[in-house]
């Protein structure tokens, strides 16, 4: 008896009815959203109505040559210090993982020292190096020197900032690179050894490219951090972005508008870095997943194409077709 009945029911109803249920209400979310909305309104209100923000002054100085020069120095400091940091970091990480206790010990002490003292202190130290070594010479250790120089003219404020930020960054990058190297499966090293690859070749061709997936995200983080940490160089008179605006407001006393100018530029630069990091991560993710996810741009383009196609097709559909589907 049951079999014919089920067959009958199936015949009568066809495909199952789409569920239409009363959704659960979330009053808490509405209250929270209302609070956020009020706070945003207050923020916008004060930004617009408080004349002391000095939006016209911000506009006036935003692209001024002194601010742009400062911006250039900030970018220079960030790029050079990060370059030093990354090269030093790879070197220190490989040393740290060495079987030679002297090499790994030296790396450990370096990291211990440079991570253990404030970067501001390190900057001041390099800036005042001339007190410790008035003359700097290049030559054979414990032997004759070939080139001599005055420390004050060799270590300029910019050189001190680059040294301080770069050497400090090296310690942090070393730990990041080490974590990346350790994250690579040991079987990879064995497979490389088994085909006759040397240690150096294995490191360069097999381990580091795979370690990159682990190294890139924190390195992006470090770069963004460096962009802002470079403002500490203002203390040792490098006219980077912060010191440039400080010099301006020390004359015209427009402190807040000029600090906002600097902040906007920092935000713009970190945004650009964030986008860059996304694409670098994507590059090193190849082989890690079965297929790479689409980039936001690709997704946007595809959605546009789909919408376009749909819009283009709709009027061409014969009226009968949709009727049949009912």
């Amino acid at each position, binding site marked *: 008896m049951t079999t014919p009945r089920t067959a009958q029911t199936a015949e009568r109803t066809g495909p199952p009815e789409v569920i239409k249920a009363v959704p659960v209400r979330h009053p808490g979310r509405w209250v929270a959203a209302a609070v956020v909305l009020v706070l945003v309104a207050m923020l916008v209100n004060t930004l617009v109505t408080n004349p002391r923000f000095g939006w016209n002054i911000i506009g006036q100085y935003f692209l001024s040559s002194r601010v742009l020069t400062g911006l250039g120095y900030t970018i220079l400091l960030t790029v050079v210090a990060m370059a030093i940091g990354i090269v030093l970091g790879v070197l220190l990480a490989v040393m740290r993982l060495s079987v030679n206790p002297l090499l790994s010990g030296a790396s450990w002490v370096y990291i211990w020292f440079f991570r253990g003292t404030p970067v501001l202190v390190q900057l001041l130290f390099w800036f005042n190096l001339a007190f410790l070594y008035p003359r700097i010479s290049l030559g054979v250790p414990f032997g004759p020197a070939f080139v001599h120089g005055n420390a004050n003219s060799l270590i300029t404020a910019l050189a001190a900032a680059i040294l301080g930020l770069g050497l400090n960054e090296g310690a942090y990058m070393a730990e990041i690179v080490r974590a990346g190297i350790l994250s690579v499966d040991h079987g990879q090293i*064995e*497979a490389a*050894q088994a*085909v006759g690859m040397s*240690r150096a*070749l294995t490191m360069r061709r097999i381990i580091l490219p795979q370690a990159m997936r682990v190294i890139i995200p924190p390195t992006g983080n470090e770069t963004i951090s460096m962009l802002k940490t470079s403002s500490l160089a203002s203390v040792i008179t490098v006219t980077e972005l912060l010191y440039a605006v400080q010099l301006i407001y020390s004359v015209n006393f427009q402190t807040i508008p000029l600090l906002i100018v600097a902040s906007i530029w920092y935000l713009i630069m970190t945004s650009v870095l964030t986008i860059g990091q996304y694409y670098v991560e994507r590059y090193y993710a190849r082989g890690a997943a*079965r297929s790479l996810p689409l980039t936001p741009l690709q997704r946007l383009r595809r959605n546009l194409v789909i919408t376009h196609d749909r819009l283009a097709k709709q009027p061409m559909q014969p009226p009968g077709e949709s009727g049949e589907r009912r």
Partner: protein
Amino acid sequence: MSTSFEAQAATAFAGTGPMVLAEQVHKSFGLLEVLKGIDIEVGRGEVMCIIGPSGSGKSTFLRCINHLEKIDAGRLSVDGELVGYRQQGGKLYELRDREVCAKRAEIGMVFQQFNLFPHMTALENVIEAPVRVRKMPKNEATDLANQLLADTGMEDKASAYPKQLSGGQQQRVAIARALAMRPKLMLFDEPTSALDPELVGEVLGVMRNLAKTGMTMVVVTHEMGFAREVGDSLVFMDDGVVVESGRPRDVLSNPQHERTSAFLSKVL
């Protein structure tokens, strides 16, 4: 079988004497003695299968052959030359890294976990060592790799990344990668143990074809059918010693030792 597999065979018969000779090989990890005096001889063109319970030392012995592990005592030589050492005037000298690498380049190895390089396509995996280690021109290496991928039935997947391949396909690429170095000896460390049952056959098929070309092979395996059909000799290891060895048919159907029959009764 196609041409490049045939070419492998030519190198295998180049010298004289056994391809692998182990005499009283000992190996310990800390206090744990894993190999307690192994005597094994693998002839040129011979396919030797090594079976035994896990922890019996069969994988360790295989890894000693290409110096992934150092032996503590005894003598181990491949193609008449000591593994990892050079003997001069009754004294042993450790080989430099470069020399060890050159020796390893002549021995192919296939791992249980495939260990393909995940950031490279199948083709890039195969050409990596010929190009970087042997300094072979890239187009020449690519021709060789395409031939080997065809031999292993992977020609359609040359541009796929390992993650996009099944286990059996990955292992076939791994075999092609090892063969690209034109080895005189191939080591297989449980090549089918990490595979789904229905994928085991395709890998064993490739190995069977390779054996037909005369390649010298040492295969640590749990595939008794393969050992019986393809193997020229069978070694049963237990607790760091060779318990029994002989023709696969004899050992499998008429084991002489109690430990062998006890093991076989569990796996057959």
